[in-house]
């Protein structure tokens, strides 16, 4: 099928992305603002009998059910938010341990706990570092409906190619916003394959080890793989960063507002650039360092407290750069507000 322009919501784009990525099974539990992904998938499954689904008893079962499907060799995923994303840490940790290609689409809502239902960027820590491990999970952050579609496809490809659990972050505004997007059909899909291989010589997978040394060897290998895979996984966008002395760092919808803001700030003349991480974990460290080369001041703008900032500051530790964090947990930013805040601190 050729690329086509259509008028859809982010949650619809996520469903189409999963289908175009070759996903065959979704397990889910309704939660605002991700419910429409489950509903949308079920609607598609009514038409296409190859697609399967189960509305589970809770998100824990949804996540572990997904792991079962993966073991059988089919692409599967779940979608959730906030408190559901917390429950999914249990299966996500098992996926991290066993290197299972789990895909989760998390439409962030305000927290802690039930919080608010539509928007925040407070699930970055949870997505990247929410398990009882070291955070060897890939986390993408989408900043437009079209990008959400593309990143969902990318997530399945990356998960099955490199065997890391993979999360695509969005939020309720992105999920419910309807826009005209050009769906770029994937050029290549990484195929799924049975992880329990059904060979005469059986596969025995374990999630628990009896000695620190034997588990240490497994973790060492995983960490080495993580570093080896990182250059191929990381993605980011740098705008007007060549001459930038001031850099804005933002992701997701906040980055979309920041993009508009830097036009209003006459950015080229004022030497203001934007670095937008598309993968929050692992971070595109080289691109960030390149964008920050001549920079004296970095504004880290996020709808959360210190979640993106910790990731960025860790990468730039030891530099002389002044960091200004503009944090509005669970509240959004308009381009005008970003302009005002930057002028105030200019």
């Amino acid at each position, binding site marked *: 099928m050729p690329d086509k322009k259509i008028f859809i919501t982010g949650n619809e784009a996520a469903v189409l992305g999963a289908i175009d990525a070759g996903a065959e099974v979704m397990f889910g539990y309704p939660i605002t603002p991700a419910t429409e992904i489950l509903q949308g998938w079920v609607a598609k499954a009514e038409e296409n009998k190859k697609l399967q689904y189960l509305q589970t*008893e809770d998100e824990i079962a949804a996540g*572990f059910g997904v*792991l079962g499907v993966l*073991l059988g060799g089919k692409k599967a995923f779940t979608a959730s938010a906030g408190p559901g994303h917390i429950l999914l840490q249990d299966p996500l940790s098992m996926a991290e341990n066993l290197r299972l290609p789990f895909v989760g689409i998390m439409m962030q809502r305000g927290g802690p706990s039930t919080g608010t239902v539509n928007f925040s960027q407070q699930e970055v820590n949870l997505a990247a570092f929410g398990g009882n491990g070291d955070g060897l999970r890939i986390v993408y952050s989408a900043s437009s409906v079209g990008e959400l579609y593309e990143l969902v496809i990318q997530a399945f490809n990356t998960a099955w190619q490199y065997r890391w659990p993979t999360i695509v972050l969005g939020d309720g505004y992105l999920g419910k916003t309807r826009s005209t997007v050009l769906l770029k059909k994937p050029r290549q899909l990484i195929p799924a394959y049975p992880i329990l291989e059904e060979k005469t010589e*059986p596969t025995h*997978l374990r*999630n*628990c080890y009896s000695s620190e040394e034997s588990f240490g060897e497994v973790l060492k290998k995983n960490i080495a793989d993580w570093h080896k895979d990182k250059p191929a996984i990381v993605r980011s966008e740098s705008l007007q960063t060549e001459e930038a002395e001031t850099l804005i760092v933002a992701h997701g919808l906040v980055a979309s507002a920041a993009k508009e803001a830097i036009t209003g700030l006459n950015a080229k003349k004022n030497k203001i650039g934007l670095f937008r991480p598309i993968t929050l974990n692992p971070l595109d460290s080289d691109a960030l360092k390149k964008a920050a080369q001549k920079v004296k001041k970095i504004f880290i703008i996020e709808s959360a407290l210190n979640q993106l900032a910790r990731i960025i500051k860790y990468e730039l530790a030891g530099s002389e750069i002044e960091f200004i964090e503009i944090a509005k947990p669970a509240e959004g930013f308009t381009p005008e507000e970003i302009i005002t805040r930057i002028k105030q601190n200019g």
Partner: protein
Amino acid sequence: MDNFSPKSWNQKSKPHFFCPGCGHAIALKQLGYAIDDLAIQQKTTIGIDIGCSLLVWDFFNIDTVQTHHGRTTPVMVGYKIAKPQRIALAYTGDGGAYAIGLQSLVHAAFRNNPVTVIVVNNENYAMTGGQLSPTTETGIKTTTSPSGKDLKFGPGFKGPELLHQIANEKSFIARGSISNPVQLKNLLIKAIKNQTDNNSFSFIEILSICPTNWKTDAEQSFERLKEMEKYYPIGEIK
């Protein structure tokens, strides 16, 4: 290989790592014989829980995944959706089945997911050192009921009877005991055949012994098992 071990056992992982006298080994021998009799070794996948069950991760020459506490049932439900032609067994203890994993177990039975759940009930959390379990009977001492289990923590939990109330009529639900291995093997065979022939849920609870945490010798262990069988009736739940 000796003449008594099931052919489906993985001899490389024997002798096993269960405590001396543990009932799991007897249960697993009958499960092995059931798999041998049905000739399904190449068609079966086993999911196992944590706790003592996790020692089954390489027990059979069969694809096995050791999951997470209480999560074996949903993993095998998912697996079966991807692989409807395979035989999916979920092996767990009484804590995994009736406490932390009950929600998923109840719903798998309720939906009639075609998986076979096998629960070894030794009335305690054995791997963590013998704590109270839902199935611990009133008055029994454990490390978290040092004066004997008070009724305020509930009497012994009857899982098969509970599931029977909500399971589909095509399901197969039974309780066996390691005290009667032949009957146990036959119940396991019926349970597995219910998955393959009726594409339906099946469930076996196996009453078992835990000499280490019960602090009983062989004779005392089987005496206590006899008492368990009075409270937990053996056979198909109809």
